[in-house]
């Protein structure tokens, strides 16, 4: 229920808060003023009471038969507190009433004896009389002609409460116009402050996937709203780029997926068209399964890329000594080179280390080496070199082949997803066009880079550069080697 009553616009909410806070502050101010006033008036009253009680004491005496005499002629002295005629009671030490003035009538002033009243000190308290009248009561015990006697003097507090009530009402009466004024002002201010946001929101609403190129106007780059607008523009920019990327990637991926799917379908359809022997069917099914294996590997690579794009792959880095690690990858793929009669060599600094995720680094090296073997001619040479940079901050792992090289127009695009220099040949060799894209991502996720160097038209060098582990410790010229 309360929820439904909540105002929807920030502007109204701001204004309401503003007014509520102001009202609260003013109310606290008013209340404390009233309380202070009461305290002050009471203390004035107490002063007067002390003066009066001393005067009255002087007017009391006992007759020889023990009756209390009160020389009430003090009223003739034009007493300054006449308007505050005191209520008065006089009691004996055991609480027997000796005197009660006419003003009190038959009301009791303070009732029976209170503890401490007979101590001889001034005792002040506020009490209610039986008819509800608020009274300030002062009592003190005196020794009159040898008899302990208690005098109680009471002053009405009604006028004091009346004054503080008036003050509070006066303040409240002033509060309403102040709050209305503050509310209007607050509403106006909030509206001014929020206006640009509303304009921005209207503009953003018109931006959709087809119109991602639109941007917000930045009025003042240095205020909060300008900051908001330019932040939003940056976000739009990133969104636009990733949308473009996604669109291209989706169309490429569909194309790639369609190829094995088409093969599966047509092999299956043709296989069913004519009755064959069990052997024929085995052949057909085997061929379809091969395509499905290719499809699986493609989907796996796509998943890797999708996760990498989403930033879901966090490298689990350990310290890796590069040479033995690379040697392991080389020995894994060695047989492939052997089959093609290629020589595969590896050398370089054998102590240098990097901080890297073993699985990712292995995949990067495997992809690079596999490419080199795949695209080098039979009997070619492939060399893996591990080199520390001159400034001792990075490590380069180079994979060089003396194959046909990569023609200049293709060099820029070689790391793009699904990009192939020679489509037919790549597919023949079992490539899915993602190997280098994954390798490049693998380099970048470690804060490194992967580049292609083509010194001549024959052969090429892929260079993976990674930050050297412990490079911050400064240079060690003894292990530093320069690379071109």
């Amino acid at each position, binding site marked *: 229920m309360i929820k439904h009553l909540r105002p929807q616009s920030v502007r109204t909410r701001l204004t309401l808060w503003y007014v509520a806070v102001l009202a609260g502050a003013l109310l606290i101010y008013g209340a404390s003023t009233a309380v202070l006033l009461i305290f002050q008036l009471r203390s004035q009253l107490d002063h007067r009471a002390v003066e009066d009680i001393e005067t009255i004491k002087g007017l009391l005496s006992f007759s020889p038969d023990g009756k209390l005499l009160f020389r009430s002629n003090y009223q003739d002295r034009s007493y300054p507190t006449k308007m505050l005629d005191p209520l008065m009671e006089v009691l004996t030490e055991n609480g027997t009433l000796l005197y009660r003035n006419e003003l009190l009538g038959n009301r009791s002033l303070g009732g029976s004896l209170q503890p401490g009243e007979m101590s001889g000190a001034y005792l002040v308290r506020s009490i209610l009389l039986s008819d509800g009248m608020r009274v300030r009561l002062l009592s003190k015990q005196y020794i009159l002609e040898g008899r302990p006697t208690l005098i109680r003097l009471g002053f009405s507090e009604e006028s004091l409460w009346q004054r503080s009530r008036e003050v509070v009402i006066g303040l409240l009466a002033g509060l309403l116009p102040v709050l209305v004024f503050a509310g209007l002002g607050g509403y106006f201010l909030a509206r001014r402050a929020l206006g640009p946001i509303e304009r921005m929101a209207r503009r953003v609403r018109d931006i959709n996937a087809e119109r991602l190129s639109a941007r917000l106007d930045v009025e003042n780059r240095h205020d909060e709203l300008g900051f908001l607008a330019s932040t939003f523009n940056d976000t739009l920019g990133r969104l636009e780029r990733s949308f473009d990327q996604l669109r291209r990637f989706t169309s490429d991926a569909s194309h790639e997926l369609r190829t094995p799917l088409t093969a599966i379908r047509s092999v299956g359809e043709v296989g069913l068209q004519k009755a064959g022997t069990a052997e024929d069917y085995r052949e057909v*099914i*085997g061929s*379809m399964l091969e395509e499905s294996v290719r499809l699986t590997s493609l989907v796996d690579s796509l998943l890797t890329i999708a996760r990498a794009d989403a930033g879901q792959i966090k490298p689990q880095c350990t310290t890796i000594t590069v040479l033995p690690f690379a040697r392991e990858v080389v020995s*894994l793929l060695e*047989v*492939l080179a052997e089959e093609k009669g290629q020589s595969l060599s590896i050398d370089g600094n054998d102590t240098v280390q990097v901080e890297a995720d073993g*699985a990712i680094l292995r995949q990067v090296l495997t992809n690079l080496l596999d490419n080199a073997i795949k695209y080098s001619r039979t009997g070619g040479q492939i060399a893996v070199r591990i080199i520390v940079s001159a400034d001792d901050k990075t490590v380069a792992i180079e994979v060089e082949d003396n194959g046909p090289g990569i023609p200049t127009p293709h060099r820029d695009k070689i790391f793009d997803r699904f990009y192939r220099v020679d489509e037919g040949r790549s597919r023949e060799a079992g490539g899915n066009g993602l190997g280098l894209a994954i390798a490049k991502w693998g380099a970048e996720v470690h804060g490194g880079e992967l580049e292609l160097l083509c010194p001549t038209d024959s052969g090429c060098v892929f260079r993976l550069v990674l930050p050297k582990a412990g490079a911050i410790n400064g240079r060690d010229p003894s292990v530093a080697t320069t690379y071109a």
Partner: protein
Amino acid sequence: MRSLRILLVEDERKVAKALQEGLEAESYSIAVAHSGEEGFFRVSSEPFDLAVLDIMLPGRSGIEMLSAARRQGIKIPVLLLTAKDTVEDRVLGLDAGADDYLVKPFAFPELCARIRALLRRGKGTPILNLEIGDLQVDLVTRIVTRGVRRLELTTKEFELLEYLLRHQGHVVSREMLAREVWKMSVRHTPLDNVIDVHMVRLRRKVDEGFSKKLIHTVRGVGFLMKAEK
């Protein structure tokens, strides 16, 4: 001996049917459930030796079903099938009480191998010798002989042969070899080529010059070690 009973919980009917037929051909007795509720009902009311459980099920997920079954004290080995293979998913599955998991799409021979391994678990005695036909492998001395001829194998070839022999009579996929022999968890193409080359070499050493071939290729699936009658 009665055939071992396996509960298969899989909502995709085509996959369920294929798996059922395939596993029945391996002489298991299969019960199929198409939802988590049905699976839970059957596993808590009938005796099974093993359950194969898809994670993504309509209604109650495989994980929920598994936790509920474990809470009821059902202790049979459970193999999870999952289409997602992030580490979190695996941890979730294993935490819920699964004994093993397999990522879709998987090779059928691998499913069979995992099921055999789970059913065998805890009852195996160490094997010191493997043999098939006239091929003898001594796992301690690592000496391999075929008939009277002694075969010289590289380390990789020996491991490959051992794995094939341990699964003799069953098809072994390249993925299984990559994972179990090459210890590679990521599936990617280069390794398939590497496996093929090693297989060609191993085959040359084991089968060349003998009339009865022991290593067979099953096209599109993998390899099979079997002595022809």
